[in-house]
């Protein structure tokens, strides 16, 4: 099995993408709502990644 080396950012983005898709699929009733909710979750994941990244960067001084 090939070994994968990802940065924090790449791994977080992949996690956010796959999780958002499943959350969209299982929580909403129409395809349009699913797509919107998946995009909404992904957007919030990415915003949280940047916010926490900056928080840790500033916290380190």
């Amino acid at each position: 099995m090939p070994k994968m080396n990802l940065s924090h950012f790449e791994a977080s983005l992949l996690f956010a993408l796959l999780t958002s898709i499943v959350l969209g699929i299982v929580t909403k009733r129409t395809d349009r709502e699913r797509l919107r909710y998946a995009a909404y979750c992904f957007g919030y994941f990415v915003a949280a990644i940047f916010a926490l990244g900056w928080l840790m960067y500033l916290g380190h001084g």
Partner: protein
Amino acid sequence: MAEVKEAAQPRNWIPVVALGWFLPGGGHFLLKRPGRGAIVAACVALMFLLGLMMRGAMFQWQTGDLLTTVIYCGGFIGDLMSGVLFLLARAFGYDQPDMAGHVHDYGTKFLVAAGLLNILAMVDAYEIATGRKD
């Protein structure tokens, strides 16, 4: 995504949930929701494979103080919920030892998250089978 939808009639949910556990997305296929089943299967399988390729560790059942019990038993249950992916990975020896490094840590979390996503899919399949959802 055009799918043939059955009328919302309650049916026996146990085989649906059991198949959903064993084969991620299988419950949806049994309920004739192949599009949703395929997307769930792809996401869970991809998450699990990424975890393996990042050399993530699988949790062993371990008890002790509260934190140890919650982390190790919870992690083991999360891994187990990936169904056949977990069983095959264990059978073929892809169970990695726990190693230091951020990539391995992400891998471990990806393996657990694959199982947690499958739990969400199983709950969705249960709701469809019991007629609470289309």
